[in-house]
């Protein structure tokens, strides 16, 4: 039982990170029909910004701020202006190809311009263990959970309680109607890109102490984010959160209790099952389909 609680807590922590990535993913899809195949690499990259800033002499907290700022500029604004905007007129498919190429580009760039070796990354809190009943829980997992919950709460307040957030939601649900109502749709779309950049930067800060900063990190993270989004429902922010948490817990428990060799396979099997039985996801709405 004790080990079960340990696994559950660390699973929740991983799941919370997946959820952050998945939320950004669904936000981009909702407002601009962008399937970002480079989302995993977007999480891999900010860690290298932060490491580079620290190498230049910045303390960790300042480096984190620099990292978030750089990812807002590069992964938010530049990504939208250079990659997405010129491609949108061709439809969904060419943009998918382009983001696949972008993921390759970012991965190879991190490898060639920083390092192909895994880099140690500072933790948010000193790594010690806390004993809760019989279970040993690392402070790191708890810190990850706390930051993730804070971020998601802040995001929810932004989206549901503020005028800006409601405008963004309106843009996501029906851009034409939103425009008629006088909402600056283009600016709202830009804001979702910025939001996504902040989310991946936070996810990067949370995940890198665990996985180390490595140029290949994006492969598993991007996949996890997409599976989380599908499981929860592609068109719902809360679906992505639920999907992320389910995925993280499932990943940890199945590795411990069923087979660690096939650890990577369980999320995929769940993905296929969800697509077969409930293609709109657990919390999703059914979208109208064009053929």
């Amino acid at each position, binding site marked *: 039982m004790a080990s079960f609680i340990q696994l559950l807590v660390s699973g929740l922590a991983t799941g919370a990170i997946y959820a952050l990535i998945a939320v950004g993913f669904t936000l981009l899809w909702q407002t601009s029909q962008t399937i970002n195949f480079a989302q995993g690499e977007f999480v891999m990259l900010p860690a290298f910004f932060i490491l580079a800033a620290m190498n230049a002499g910045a303390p960790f907290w300042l480096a984190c701020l620099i990292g978030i700022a750089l990812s807002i500029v590069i992964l938010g604004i530049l990504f939208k202006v250079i990659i997405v905007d010129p491609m949108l007129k061709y439809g969904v498919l*060419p943009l998918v190809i382009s983001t696949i*190429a972008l993921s390759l580009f970012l991965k190879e760039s991190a490898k060639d311009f920083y390092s192909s070796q895994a880099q140690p990354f500072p933790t948010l809190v000193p790594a010690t263990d806390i004993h809760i009943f019989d279970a040993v829980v690392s402070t790191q997992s708890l810190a990850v959970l706390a930051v993730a919950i804070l971020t998601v709460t802040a995001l929810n307040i932004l989206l549901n309680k503020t005028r800006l957030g409601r405008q963004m939601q309106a843009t996501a649900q029906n851009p034409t109607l939103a425009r008629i109502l006088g909402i600056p749709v283009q600016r709202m779309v830009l804001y979702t890109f910025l939001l996504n950049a902040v989310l991946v930067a936070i996810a990067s800060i949370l995940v890198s102490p665990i996985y180390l900063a490595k140029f290949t990190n994006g492969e598993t993270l991007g996949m996890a984010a997409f599976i989380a989004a599908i499981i929860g429902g592609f068109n719902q922010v809360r679906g992505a959160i639920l999907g992320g948490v389910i995925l993280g817990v499932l990943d940890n428990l199945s590795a411990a209790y069923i087979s660690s060799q*096939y650890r*990577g*396979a369980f999320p995929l099997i769940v993905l296929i099952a969800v*697509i077969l039985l409930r293609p709109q996801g657990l919390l999703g709405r059914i979208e109208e389909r064009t053929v």
Partner: protein
Amino acid sequence: MTRLGTLAVIIAVAVAIAAPFFLKPYGIFLISTWAVLTIAAIGLNLTLGYAGQISLAQGAFVGIGAYTVALLTPLGVPFFVAFFAAGLLCFAVGWGLGYPALRVQHHYLAFVTLAFTTLVFLVLRNEEWLTNGIYGITGTARPTISGWKTSGARDFYFLCLGVLALLSLATWWMLRSPWGRAFVALRENSIRALSLGLDTRRYTLMAFAIGSSLGGLSGALYAPLVQFIEPNSFALGLSFNLLLMVIVGGSGNFFGPFVGALVAVLLPEWLRITQGYYLIIYAAAIMVMMAFCPSGLLGLVERAIRALNGRRADATTSVRAEGAGT
């Protein structure tokens, strides 16, 4: 097809036949790789270019084909039996995968096939009793066909080229048959195809399964070509690569995969002077191309020819577009 197009094809075939007599063994290996990968790319072009579905499973099908041949031939199964077994197996697996996966479209399918590729990789790596795990399988024999030993580099190249020629003719013929025209209809306007009474989902599934079996046949040649197969060769990288080949050449264009595979095989050699930066340049070039000419290199050529022909082309654009597609 235009007269110019026919001429280009004749020249290309002549070059493909003459090339091995002027190349060193490594060059022959490269063009053999080209021939083998082109087969897989033709298969993917059916899925991507005609049915309009992004598949990231083609590399996995190449892997399934390669392992089928590598495992069957040492048991004494004749090469061509194993070769067709690889194609049939991939057709069946493709059908089985496509049936649920094609319920969802586009980006969903891309990630489902991505998941499939990862699953195949895990099975190849973990089931050591069957696949020898990460140590791979070496020394798949090259076949002897009624006395013709293809163990030499040049002989094996001609075998690959022959198979490529037969499979492309078969695909060409299929696309021209009434049945295959449905694929073209899917590409041109799937909503109209549906309204004309075509069961688009069934044809999409068919395109996917046939494309997968071509992937398997390509893998069946890949194993004896490189003589060493291991799970990593068929991980996501290969699937991405094949996808980019089809895109670079021109998806939905019959000759696209030939050009795309050539670029993918030769470019790393030419860009060797840039050392590690090759993939960065390649990826950047693809992003630029997608922004300015999503129809690929052949689309660029078509555009250039049209610009040269000027007015005359304007009148016949629609006719030519139809001709180029079939």
